[in-house]
């Protein structure tokens, strides 16, 4: 028992403990509940930052799981309680750790049944942390499934609009994906006889006699991740879930939940099946470009402020998919950067859109307008988040997208024996950031600019707490944008062994 192999478990289970404690507090003591929730997310955040600082970034540690704990769990099937972090999961894990704390602050004004709300919120955080840290597939799958339950309740009880419908849709889509994933995991287990992600990756699937074609396994597994990311045409749950979810849940959903899909693709699909991934990469690159362009086109037609941001996520997740399946080191580092960057930027966009909606009681873009005079602070915060979403240099969005493009342009993924395909698709993808400028600036104009309207006189601007958490987001967006090496140095150690497997 020492710090290094207990810290991850502490980070994962502290929020779960917090959830249990909160479940025992009466609804009438809302303040106490909120402080408990803040405490049980702040401590994991502090521990997470310590882990991040202590994380060994040297090249010798490439592919080595750090801070890992490996305990026998169900010996009969060789299932282990195995958690650990490498360069890919570390930034995502810390991102969720951070968002977990920030969403408690974002939820500070929740008054409806706070006991259950915060219990579910903390359970949600714990399960996503678990997904990013798990190194055993069974453990991974269980955390993956647990996440659905709090999401369902959070959307269907504390949401707005067609909340029951959206919650149900979310669950059904996720289960559809999970069912495929489960089948994939079983195939994987019967082929390799192991549930250890590390072992399977190192041995390579090719060294086993496969019970089903490896390509089938690959597609079963990626089914679950494709729904989560989401990949066209499995994306329509996302706008509904985002639109009707409470603000904090939208932040977690966009900030960390979608990244489970991208993470799973890298960690499982590409790492376990490098040859299959290379063979089918053109398909996924094409889907990525569809995500980017089609997503942006649909975004431009939205009239609901949250729905617009939700669709922009579809477009932005296309960059992640492009980066992953371009299968180069630069593009995969870029994709991972994009996951972190999008988590911060879109998290802030949703948080601020929530403020606008909460304070003005209006979410229809056509009915908003001229708010810059009445709520200047929210305008500034929203504008900065928007700049990130447009990929303006200096923000994390730029460097993430730039690295993705830089890598994908040089991709050696072949289509009919040629790499021209990667060039063309990258150039089309770059059009996505042009369209991004279109929908973000148009949104800003319609919501904040123009003559002030009398009906919004006296609308509250961001209060102290809201300024504080927004400032945290903004500082991080610019820190990563101006000094990307704080992340790339770590991500690189996780990506380079995979690149070695792909032979890129």
């Amino acid at each position: 028992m020492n710090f290094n192999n207990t810290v991850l478990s502490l980070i994962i289970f502290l929020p779960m403990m917090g959830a249990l404690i909160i479940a025992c507090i009466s609804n009438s003591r809302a303040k106490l509940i909120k402080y408990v929730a803040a405490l049980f997310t702040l401590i994991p955040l502090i521990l997470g930052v310590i882990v991040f600082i202590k994380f060994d970034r040297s090249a010798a540690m490439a592919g080595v799981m750090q801070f890992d704990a490996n305990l026998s769990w169900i010996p009969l099937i060789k299932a282990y309680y195995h958690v650990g972090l490498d360069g890919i999961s570390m930034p995502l894990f810390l991102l969720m750790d951070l968002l977990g704390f920030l969403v408690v602050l974002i939820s500070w004004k929740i008054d409806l049944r706070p006991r259950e709300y915060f219990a579910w919120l903390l359970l949600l955080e714990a399960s996503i942390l678990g997904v990013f840290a798990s190194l055993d597939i069974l453990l991974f799958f269980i955390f993956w499934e647990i996440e659905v339950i709090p999401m369902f309740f959070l959307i269907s009880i504390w949401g707005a609009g067609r909340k029951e419908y959206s919650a149900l849709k979310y669950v059904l889509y996720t289960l559809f994906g999970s069912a495929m994933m489960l089948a994939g995991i079983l195939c994987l287990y019967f082929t390799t006889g192991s549930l250890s992600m590390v072992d399977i990756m190192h041995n390579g699937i090719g060294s086993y006699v496969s019970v089903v074609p490896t390509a089938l396994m690959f597609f079963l597994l990626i089914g679950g991740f494709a729904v989560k990311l989401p990949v066209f045409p499995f994306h329509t749950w996302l706008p509904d879930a985002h639109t009707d979810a409470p603000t904090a849940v939208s932040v977690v959903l966009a900030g960390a939940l979608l990244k489970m899909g991208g993470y799973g693709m890298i960690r499982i699909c590409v790492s376990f099946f490098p040859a299959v991934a290379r063979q089918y990469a053109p398909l996924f690159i094409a889907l990525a470009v569809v995500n980017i362009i089609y997503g942006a086109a649909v975004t431009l037609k939205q009239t609901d402020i949250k729905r617009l941001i939700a669709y922009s996520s579809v477009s932005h997740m296309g960059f992640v998919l492009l980066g992953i399946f371009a299968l180069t080191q630069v593009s995969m580092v870029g994709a991972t950067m994009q996951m972190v960057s999008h988590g911060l930027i879109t998290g802030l966009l949703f948080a601020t859109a929530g403020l606008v909606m909460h304070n003005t009681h209006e979410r229809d873009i056509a009915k908003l307008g001229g708010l810059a005079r009445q709520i200047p602070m929210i305008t500034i915060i929203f504008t900065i988040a928007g700049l990130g979403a447009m990929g303006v240099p200096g923000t994390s969005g730029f460097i993430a997208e730039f690295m993705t493009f830089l890598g994908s342009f040089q991709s050696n993924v072949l289509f009919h024996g040629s790499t021209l395909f990667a060039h063309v698709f990258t150039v089309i993808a770059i059009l996505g950031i042009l369209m991004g400028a279109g929908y973000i600036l148009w949104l800003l104009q319609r919501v904040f600019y123009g003559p002030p309207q009398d009906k919004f006189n006296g609308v509250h601007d961001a209060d102290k707490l809201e300024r504080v958490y927004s400032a945290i987001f903004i500082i991080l967006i610019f820190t990563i944008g101006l000094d990307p090496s704080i992340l790339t140095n770590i991500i690189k150690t996780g990506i380079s062994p995979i690149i070695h497997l792909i032979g890129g």
Partner: protein
Amino acid sequence: MQNNFVWLIFLLPFLSFLVISLFLKPLFKDKPKLAGYVTIAAVAASFILSVVVLFKLLGAADHKLIVPEINWVIIENGVTIHLGLMIDSLTGIMLMVVTTVSLMVQIYSQGYMKDDPGYHRYYAAMSLFTTAMLGLVMADSLLLAFMFWEMVGLCSYLLIGFWFHKPSAANAAKKAFIVTRIGDFGFLAAIIFLYAHTGTFDIATLQNMAVSGMLAGSVLTWAAIGIFAGAVGKSAQFPLHVWLPDAMEGPTPVSALIHAATMAAAGVFLVARTYPLFEHSATALHTVAIVGGFTAIFAASIALVQNDIKRVLAYSTISQLGYMMLGLATGGVAVGIFHLFNHAFFKALLFLGAGSINHATQTFDMREMGGLRKAMPKTYITFLIAATSLAGIWPLSGFWSKDAILSQALDKQPIIFVLVLITVFMTAFYMFRVIFLTFGGTYRGKEHHLHESFSVMTIPLMVLTVLAVGSGFFNLNGGFSSFFGAGETHSILEGLFGIFKEPLPWISLLLAGSGIFLAYAIYSRKWISAESLGKMFKPLYQLFYHKYWVDELYEGIIVKKILMGGLFKAAHFFDTKVIDGGINTFMIQKVIVKNFFAGLFAFDRKGVDGAVNGVAGTTLAAGKTIRKAQTGQLQFYGLIIGLGVIALIVSVFIFSRV
């Protein structure tokens, strides 16, 4: 290293930005003047440092300074992106242009923006803009240049939309950003393309590769065209010129600094910066020459008939930027940049003069002006000198650089030469049309107290007048050209009068003179009626007046009809009706939920309920409360998840070969 001070040139205005937005704005709300002083101090310091740099460059071998670079990010094993500064003669000249004009504009703005509620925001954005522009001209790699390039565009967005409560300003800001970003798309693609072929972003390395022939053929041409696309966007060349006239919605000093002297000239700078790439591709050079020459006459023709003084100046800027592009394509860096250098001063002066007029008359519409000569003598004299310089009258600065471009164009692109020669006539005409309409005749506007502007505004006008007269003299002995390594120096007298040995200056002066005379005949003496002239050339007049209907084509047809009303609408329809409607409504709701789940649900109610709660016990801790709020469906999803996990574990046990 002793040259590290160079970093300060753009860091000082950045510091000013930070001080204003984080310190002065929240804490000294009632003392807005401080923001102006901080900005002026920072820009003045940058100006002094730029002068030091210029003198060091004049003395340095090859006119280059070495500044240590910073490692920024390692993107793959062995590939590091550096941040560094490239200080050569081009940088030296651009630093002078940017800091001088910026300093004058910041001083002038104290008067123009007096009592504006957004005073802090104005100076914060101006500081940030100056930072970005200085960073751009000093960047040593395409990536860093692109970052500052985008920052420049962002500041332009913030400043055009400065009066965001006006829908027209908000619209213009968005339009400017998006239209320039269309060009940036090409620039970014070119950077990535070049990196894929050379493995570097470093400008000097790329230049050497182009010179040595390592970078050649279609790769070089495509890269150059991509970079030029970026330049077309920022420098408002046809077909991406539409944003610049609308950008006049911003405060007038912003137009002077950003949309005349610096940002709009950034495209020209970029082509000059990567000039070896263009030089070694005949196609790329031709493209630059054709786009530049065409834009010059195209924009000048629109300027002929505009009634808004700032719009005339805006189209004039587009036209002159076209000249610069043509100068680069035919005569090289020295010729193109010399015109940029001269133009920056007299065009900034013209804009500031227009601002001064607006200060007195509260309008930009020339039909409501007239007779301002007496009320505003200082504005009049300075404006007249700048207009004469722009018209290209000897010996003012505009004459020298325009003449150099004409003579080079005659050599290399005779057809385009004819176009720009006609433009010389147009330029003189539209500028003197402005002079006679605003300063000549009698006042036509509403009752108003006409007055000369504050001295804080007129002094910058006078300083710029000195430059508008004299900036051309820097090349009298060939000094400017030789600084760029083009040509030898010779005696000043030779430069001043020797030019008249050629026929070309006589022709261009004659054309400019007749343009001025025609304007005088129509708008001052009224020998010829403008109305009847307009009727006589009605189709042509309509074409110019409606700016060739380019805006209508872009906004009305391409954006509204084809994209928003066509493609994007179709995508949206497809998304809601086909994907969501089809899969979701039909598959999920009708097939799965209604039939399959309904059957399961009945089964669940009869027997499984208790077992499920046992399995999912911990997760459903708060189950009782939730059951009240939710329909029974909820348990199903819990059930399904539980079943999934159980199925996984059970099947692993059963099939396990352990």
